[in-house]
């Protein structure tokens, strides 16, 4: 049990449930399925989004709020996804939000017991945004299995901060929130590891970006769209042609249909 009064969290971190009327920053929770995103969401917001020990538990976006050092954050819990390239409907919800939702910071939750597989997604997210905090969750499970994760080495290689946590007991969540706050305020700067594209590819991307910007000016990630077009991604082509890409940006800004508290109460999950 935690000694609440002496804990540094006391007084600095407060859960705000679903009171989202005003917030200063938007933070997304992304990661592979079943890495504990909803547990972190619940711990930070005080909400009771259903959690369950199976991949695919969260299929909709849930939103909640927390305040840290008097700054209010809106936290968005996304369905788990292995990749930004695939597209079942729950994964699409996650992908669309990361690409078009303009979050101020993305907490990417990884499973400490299966780091290699989880890093695939982290690297993909790093391609589209600098504002990433890697949350190495399930540290307790890893320890039990005799797995040690050197978080500093991970952070150095990825070029973004990495924080070890145990969401179920709340360990590391204070550090996680303060890292997120520092990243957003600019106190921490990042240099995300990005695979250097071969020069010939880079020049093609650079040629496409202004074209894309001229037809879809509100897109936060023309670079990613350029990549997808060069890869012949059918859905992205369609979306660009129909103007759907622009609509997606607007759609992410709209609040979710049902606040998460209500989702829980409706037994939807």
């Amino acid at each position, binding site marked *: 049990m935690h000694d609440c009064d002496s804990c540094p969290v006391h007084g600095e971190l407060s859960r705000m449930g679903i009171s989202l009327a005003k917030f200063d920053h938007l933070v997304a929770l992304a990661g592979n399925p*079943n890495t504990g995103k909803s547990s972190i969401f619940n711990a930070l917001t005080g909400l*009771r989004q259903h*959690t*369950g*020990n*199976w*991949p*695919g538990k969260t*299929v*909709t976006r849930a939103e909640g709020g927390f305040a840290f050092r008097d700054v209010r954050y809106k936290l968005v819990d996304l*369905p788990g996804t292995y990749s930004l*390239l695939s*597209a*079942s*409907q*729950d994964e699409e919800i996650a992908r669309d939000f990361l690409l078009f939702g303009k979050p101020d910071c993305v907490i990417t939750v990884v499973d400490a017991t299966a*780091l*290699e*597989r989880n*890093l*695939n997604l982290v*690297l*993909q997210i790093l391609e589209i945004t600098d504002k990433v905090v890697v949350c190495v969750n399930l540290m307790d*499970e890893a320890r039990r*299995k*005799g*797995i*040690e994760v*050197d*978080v500093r*080495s*991970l952070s150095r*290689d990825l070029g973004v901060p990495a924080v070890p946590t145990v969401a179920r007991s709340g360990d590391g969540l204070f550090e996680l929130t303060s890292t997120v706050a520092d990243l957003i305020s600019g106190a921490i700067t990042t240099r995300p*590891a990005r*695979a250097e594209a071969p020069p*010939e*590819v880079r020049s093609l991307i650079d*040629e*496409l970006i*202004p*074209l*894309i910007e*001229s*037809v*879809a000016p509100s897109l936060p990630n023309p670079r990613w769209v*350029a*990549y997808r*077009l*060069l*890869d*012949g991604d059918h859905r992205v*082509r369609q979306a*660009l*042609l129909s103007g759907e890409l622009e609509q997606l940006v607007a759609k992410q800004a709209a609040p979710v249909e049902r606040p998460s508290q209500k989702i*829980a*109460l*409706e*037994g*939807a*999950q």
Partner: protein
Amino acid sequence: MSAAVTPRDVLARADELQRRLGPAFRDRIVESLYAESERIAQRAVRKDENKHWDWDQRIDRIVTSPIFGLPLMLLMLALVFWLTILGANVPSQMLAGAFFWLEEKGSALFEMAGLPWWLTGFLWHGVYRGLAWVVSVMLPPMAIFFPMFTILEDLGYLPRVAFNLDWLFKRAGAHGKQALTMAMGFGCNAAGIISTRVIDSPRERLIAILTNNFVPCNGRFPTLIMLGSVFVAAAFPPVFASFAAAGAVVLVVLIGIAFTLVLSWLLSRTLLKGEASAFSLELPPYRRPSILRILYTSLIDRTLFVLWRAVLTAAPAGAVIWILANIKVGDSSLATHVADFLDPLGKAVGLDGVILLAYIIAIPANEIVVPTMLMVYMGVGMMTDITTYDELRHLLVDQHGWTLLTAACLMLFSLLHNPCATTILTIYKETKSRKWTVVGALMPLAIAFLVTFLVATVARAVF
């Protein structure tokens, strides 16, 4: 040029550039991604091979083994139902006793106060009795079943269920993850239908949506449990009664799963043609469930939620029944007239007119069909309160001519009939198609009538 650029121009230019890159572009991106992940992970992770004593794998070797996997699952299912039946019996009777005592006192108080008879009747014998029945029949089984279901879910057992059933669904031309969405349907069909979002093929997702109704949701379990306890259990010596009741419920669930598979197979051969797609499913590590969260999720979010919904529909249903039972047309009440009118159809499918009337009144939330039916019987007959299963049996068998066939047909009907209003609405929201919503609502209903008709006809011919 910037003002004149259209999306079409952008795509044309992209195509041109893409041809310059050649087809290996994507493979190169993915390969470099994997190589980078491996490199970073190798530097950050140290593994102590000595400490490696993997309980998970040992358990999984048994739980997902081709020989023990399915029998263990059935055993677990039977155990859950047996505990539910065993545990729910006494609290149900106590609740019913308390509720009907209050009804008696309350209505007496109204009469003493000189309030008109119809007001007393409408409020106490209509609305209140509807609530009382629903709470006493549904609350105890749910309060026992939901925590057990949530424990299995938190433990990590559900993906193992999907793993064990995967080959069956594949044979049926459906997605292996349908086993997962089916398992969610045990809690609530509407939730099961939302959970089909994990299935990426639209064809297989639609199959999963249309067949989700064939697993009985938690609202319908109390009906099955009650019928199992009153009719099946009574045919066995008392020592075996609870086992027999649990066995009957398991049998009904298995029939439901069989219908899920057969209809998935039929749909994937007719309306929704196609092959089953491959998928990968992670088996997560077993995790120790957290007691407080389980209690919260299962009791507040699930039990109270389902109960509240049932209460909201039971109160007006009770009112409608009281009105139907108290408006006289000619010699008998309106309820009797309607029930008599429906009786031939009811008898043809092994039920009777009252059950069909109750079913119609309870359409918004058809899990309240049993309480509704009891109220109609009691409104038509003379009996005023029933608190034990013996009295219930007496009412149904001796006064209304129920047989084992009636009970069996009602169990089948309640398993197969159309989804509740919330579920139908969810089907519409998820498919955005009127056509599939109508199919999702009427296909089960037609099957319910067909199956009960066949069962009743065959049973009458044989016995």
